[in-house]
């Protein structure tokens, strides 16, 4: 890096690109090169930096109270703001080994003073930052919930009694401790006794108060760590319909989390969709709740929550909406004798923003419902009203084809599997998940599917073939292939997400893996030795990254009032993101090669 090259290097980096040649020379002459080890701090919160850093090689992370704010890569410079303000609000440290130029503060400030172009550059940057700060603040109430951990919330202190204690003694201790619950150390593990247990057993069943408390306790409790997210706790409670969780730290129980505490914590937050859905009494309330989800997703995403959790959360909520709605619309007899299923991305639990509804109803053989047509029509229309767009392929309950008896479903499955008919339908059905009604109907249908699968290579080849249907938008020279007629965008679904989803689905079907989510499927396939561990990790990360990238663009499109599609614009990505996308697409290519080899796709 001779002097000439140093000059060439920084002359492309804003705001230095606005400098005259002589000014540039001054800058170059004053620059040093510094080396930082991984993890070393360049600027600490509250201190005044003495130079502007320009990265030659390496990555720097900017954090605020341990939360990532930004990432800087080669050719980025930082932190002009702290130089101007006199002190830094955030920490900057080397996320990997770093070589960078160091431009002394006085010189930098001098330029800002004397060069209008440079001045303008930074003042613009400042106002942008200010705006984003304000924006951030507006989101805080949801945000704080998103990142809240169990340790942030009130926990009932754990009050233990021995198993042989009498109910009377135990209640005395409860009263004394002002606690609404008590833990029992019994042979079968830790049990819990709440007011409700006492009401049910002692008051209603007249269980003698001198008998042992262990008899009336509830067991099989679930425990979580103190550092788990509240979100996670809420999910677990909802999924298992329980009201208490044991909280432990270092294998010791340090408290009990009660649903009521959790909910009251949450109810302080205006946009708590889960609670809203739970409490909705009619369609109108449910609609509001469902629409609020989108706002919540924005907040989630802005906060860098792992996409995996986000998907889980959204799926859970969507299914609650479906379940609730089905209960509102369907008469009890239908509810009992049918199963509402969601399929495709919704079934895999990979939907974030609402996409086309893919749903169906399986009816018990022999059951006839007179108003079925009316009910399914209402269901479909209400969902459209809620913001779940209609499916273009009419894979919806109001289509007779997707609302039929178990027997008819089995016929269909037979056609799919034995006669290779309609692989698209089979693919969607592979991802079916029951959300309301009698789950066993879907279970039986799926079992039938697995029984009828044969080790027929031709069948699996056909099924897997679409994995290769689209070219990966990455050229031989590792540049993106973009659509020149469509603002240089590329379709990330066709190019990256779909191949992974479908390839993994095909492998999962072949190995009769019952999991629906792509990531879970990959994990199970890895356990079966189909992928090696390193490749599985790469695949999951690539998938994760592309999903979150798509979300980022979808949110942006939504903000602009456009209809969101699956297009992303590589030119809008920063260098790190572009590199990650390239890596992800390379992994997609490797995966396609694997699928091609595994299913012998060059033969069909």
């Amino acid at each position, binding site marked *: 890096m001779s002097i000439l090259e140093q000059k060439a290097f920084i002359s492309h980096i804003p705001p230095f690109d606005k400098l005259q040649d002589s000014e540039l020379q001054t800058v170059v002459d004053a620059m040093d090169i510094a080396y930082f080890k991984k993890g070393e701090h360049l600027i600490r919160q509250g201190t005044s930096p003495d130079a502007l850093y320009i990265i030659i090689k390496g990555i720097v992370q900017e954090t605020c109270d341990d939360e990532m704010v930004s990432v800087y890569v080669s050719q980025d410079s930082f932190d002009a703001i702290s130089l101007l303000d006199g002190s830094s609000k955030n920490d900057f440290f080397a996320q990997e080994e770093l070589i960078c130029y160091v431009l002394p503060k006085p010189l930098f400030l001098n330029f800002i003073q004397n060069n209008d172009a440079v001045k303008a550059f930074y003042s613009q940057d400042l106002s942008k930052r200010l705006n984003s700060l304000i924006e951030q603040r507006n989101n805080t109430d949801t945000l704080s919930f998103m990142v809240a951990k169990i340790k942030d919330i009130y926990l009932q202190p754990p009050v233990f009694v021995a198993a042989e204690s009498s109910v009377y003694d135990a209640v005395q201790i409860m009263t004394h401790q002002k606690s609404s619950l008590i833990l029992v150390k019994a042979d079968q593990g830790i049990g819990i006794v709440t007011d409700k247990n006492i009401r049910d057993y002692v008051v209603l069943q007249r269980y003698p108060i001198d008998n042992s408390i262990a008899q009336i306790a509830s067991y099989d409790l679930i425990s979580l760590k103190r550092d788990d997210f509240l979100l996670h706790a809420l999910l677990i409670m909802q999924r298992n319909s329980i009201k208490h969780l044991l909280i432990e730290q270092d294998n010791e129980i340090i408290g009990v989390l009660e649903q009521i505490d959790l909910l009251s914590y949450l109810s302080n937050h205006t946009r708590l969709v889960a609670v809203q859905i739970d409490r909705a009494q009619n369609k109108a309330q449910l609609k509001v709740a469902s629409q609020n989800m989108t706002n919540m997703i924005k907040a989630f995403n802005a906060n860098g929550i792992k996409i995996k959790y986000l998907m889980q959360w959204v799926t859970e909520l969507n299914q609650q909406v479906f379940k609730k709605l089905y209960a509102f619309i369907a008469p009890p007899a239908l509810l009992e004798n049918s199963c509402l299923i969601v399929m495709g991305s919704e079934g895999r639990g990979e939907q974030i923003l609402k996409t086309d509804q893919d749903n169906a109803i399986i009816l018990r053989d022999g059951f006839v419902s007179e108003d079925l047509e009316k009910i399914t029509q209402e269901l479909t229309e209400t969902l459209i009203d809620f913001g779940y767009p209609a499916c273009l392929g009419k894979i919806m309950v109001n289509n007779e084809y997707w609302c039929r008896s178990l027997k008819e479903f*089995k*016929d269909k499955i*037979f056609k799919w599997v*034995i*006669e290779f008919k309609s692989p698209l339908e089979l693919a969607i059905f592979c991802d079916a998940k029951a959300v309301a009604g009698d789950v066993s109907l879907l279970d039986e249908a799926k079992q039938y599917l697995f*029984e*009828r699968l*044969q080790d027929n290579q031709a069948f699996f080849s056909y099924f897997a073939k679409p994995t290769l249907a689209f070219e990966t938008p990455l050229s031989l020279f590792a540049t993106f292939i973009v659509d020149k007629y469509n603002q240089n965008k590329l379709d990330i679904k066709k190019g990256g997400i779909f191949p992974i989803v479908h390839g993994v689905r095909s492998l999962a079907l072949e190995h009769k893996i019952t999991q629906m989510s792509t990531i879970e499927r990959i994990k199970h396939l890895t356990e079966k030795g189909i992928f090696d561990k390193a490749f599985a990790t790469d695949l999951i990360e690539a998938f994760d990254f592309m999903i979150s990238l798509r979300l980022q663009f979808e949110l942006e499109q939504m903000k602009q009032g456009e209809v969101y599609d699956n297009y992303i614009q590589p030119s809008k990505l920063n260098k790190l993101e572009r590199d990650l996308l390239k890596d992800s697409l390379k992994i997609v290519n490797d995966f396609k090669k694997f699928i091609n080899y595994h299913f012998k796709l060059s033969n069909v």
Partner: protein
Amino acid sequence: MQQEIVEKIKNDPKYQELVSNRSRFAWILSIIILVIYYSFIMVIAFAPQTFAAKIAEGSVITIGIPIGILIIVSAFVLTGIYVWRANSEFDSLIDQIKEDIK
């Protein structure tokens, strides 16, 4: 798939009909083509001069040439016959068998 289905198909009269009809048909066609081809080969093996006879007085074309072309055509025609019958008769039988064990 399970043993029960195997048993079920095996005992299905339609299956037995399919197997015997199709096998017979396939073998008959195979034998026809084998006979045609090996007659040709045998002539070449033991009496090659047979094919040297002229097709007509004054012509240079030997009888072997139209015979060769005819064999090529016969292979094509026999294939056509098989495909036609399999696509209509046998396939509908198979469909019925499948219907029974769904």
